[in-house]
């Protein structure tokens, strides 16, 4: 069927004055699929992510989401209240720095509950129950439900951010360097958790990262970006094992082997 896709962005361009943020980028993703976006710093990965999430206004292109009721929504056409509602219910965004995605002066339970209350939950007991079950899922001790995230370690904060985002059962989750700034053992733990959650809940994900290890582990397909352009796209293993473009080859060959 033609309308099988979950999310599709076509010919996205974003300019910052004279400078190119990203140019003519197209991507699509089916439900349950994980797409990796890799590239060097400044290649337009985060710009692209913010554009397709709806945070940044695109200059050209269409962003289509096949929503829960099988209606196709175009982010560039719908009005802001609708977009924000979709962002709260169907989508989720995990920031690199948990401080951007969490409310640091509100308890862990409140952080998880916020999205629930935002979509209309008004029963304290229920909210608390759901929050506890999510803390368990992301392996945070439930007894810390009333502690503030500022008392959590970096890895715990990131896991809390993931829980906060997944609590409303989004169908597509955007992640901007979800493991950046964490030490490798904590990174491994978060990746493991993400992989399980994504598989278990059948959530589609778009992950921006410069870490090829992360995409190798999580992604089904990847696109490689340079200077705002997509220079290579394909199945993850295919691109990483047999890179065609000069820059992809450089990227793959510059991974340190232990």
């Amino acid at each position, binding site marked *: 069927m033609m309308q099988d896709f979950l999310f599709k962005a076509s010919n996205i361009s974003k300019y910052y004055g004279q400078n190119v943020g990203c140019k003519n980028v197209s991507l699509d993703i089916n439900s349950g699929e994980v797409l990796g976006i890799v590239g060097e710093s400044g290649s337009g990965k985060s710009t692209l992510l913010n554009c397709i999430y709806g945070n940044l206004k695109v200059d050209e292109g269409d962003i289509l989401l096949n929503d829960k009721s099988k209606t196709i929504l175009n982010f560039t056409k719908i009005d*802001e*209240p609708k977009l*924000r509602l979709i962002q709260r219910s169907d989508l989720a965004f995990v920031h690199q720095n948990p401080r951007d995605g969490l*409310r640091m002066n*509100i*308890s862990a*339970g*409140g952080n998880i*509950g*916020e*999205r*629930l*209350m*935002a*979509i209309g939950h*008004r*029963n*304290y*007991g229920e*909210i*608390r129950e759901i929050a506890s079950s999510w803390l368990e899922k992301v392996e945070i001790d439930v007894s810390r*439900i*009333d502690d503030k995230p500022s008392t959590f370690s970096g890895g715990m904060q990131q896991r809390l951010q993931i829980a906060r985002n997944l609590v409303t059962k989004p169908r597509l989750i955007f992640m901007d360097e979800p493991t950046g700034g964490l030490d490798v053992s904590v990174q491994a733990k978060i990746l493991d958790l993400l992989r399980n959650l994504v598989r278990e809940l059948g959530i589609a994900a778009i992950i921006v990262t410069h870490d090829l290890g992360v995409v190798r582990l999580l992604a089904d397909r990847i696109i490689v970006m340079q200077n705002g352009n997509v220079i290579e796209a394909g199945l993850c293993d295919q691109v990483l094992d047999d890179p065609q473009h000069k820059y992809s080859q450089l990227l793959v060959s510059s991974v340190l082997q232990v």
Partner: protein
Amino acid sequence: MNDMSKDKNIDIQIYNFAYLDENTKRMIRRALLKALCIPGYQVPFSSREMPMPYGWGTGGIQVTSACLIPKDVLKVIDQGADDTTNAVSIRKFFQKTANVAVTEKTSDASLIQTRHRIPETKLKEQQILVYQVPIPEPLRFLEPRETETRKMHALSEYGLMFVKLYEDIAKHGHIETAYAYPVKTNGNYVTDPSPIPKFDNPKMNNNPAIQLFGAGREQRIYAIPPYTNVKSLDFEDYPFEAMKANFKCSICGSSDSYLDEIIVSDDGKRSYICSDTDYCKEQTQLNSKEEDQ
């Protein structure tokens, strides 16, 4: 040479009626009309410097000034009392600049300016209640960006407001917020009722009087028109509760008016009295009448 009668008129001549000039009052009235049309919506207005510091009720005074007419009867209360510094000075201010009649009786007043209380005596149609508001934005301490809070109001995104109540229950086992308890006005805007105790919240609902709110420093005016639905926010399993100290007034014996706690001796002995002085006086008179009979 000026004679005595001219001297006496000096007060009235050097100030325009009710202190503010006519153009300013007109600007404020426009804001008030807009506020009444969109219940609970915060209308920006160009707040003026007043001859007293912010926090003394400059917002309320400007609203009162814009509403006053010569035949008004003014009552001013501060924490329910007619005889506290703030109330006395504001009352004197309008006596001097507008020469209006003043009263302490709630039922006699046509305009009541209040700080932190709603009178116990039921308000009626034709009465105006003016609140002094320190922080008009109920979301201020939850979301510091004004651009964002405005958007949240515009799109009715009030999940965050409930996060505050959630935090209260998580920390204290019940909704601890005891004053400035957020309300939803006319099923639409979440509104800060100014720091009145939540005991007074139910009085805002369906009130026959006009309720006007002025925040001088923050330059905002908002309003609740007569007979408007005002609902205090709560959770299904933690419903809103209007609460007060569980004692009787030690002066009039009333058990259903809001009480102030007073420490009466060095070893911490407490006494509770009505915060609404007019109501307390009325009750005392009623009691003595009953005794006479």
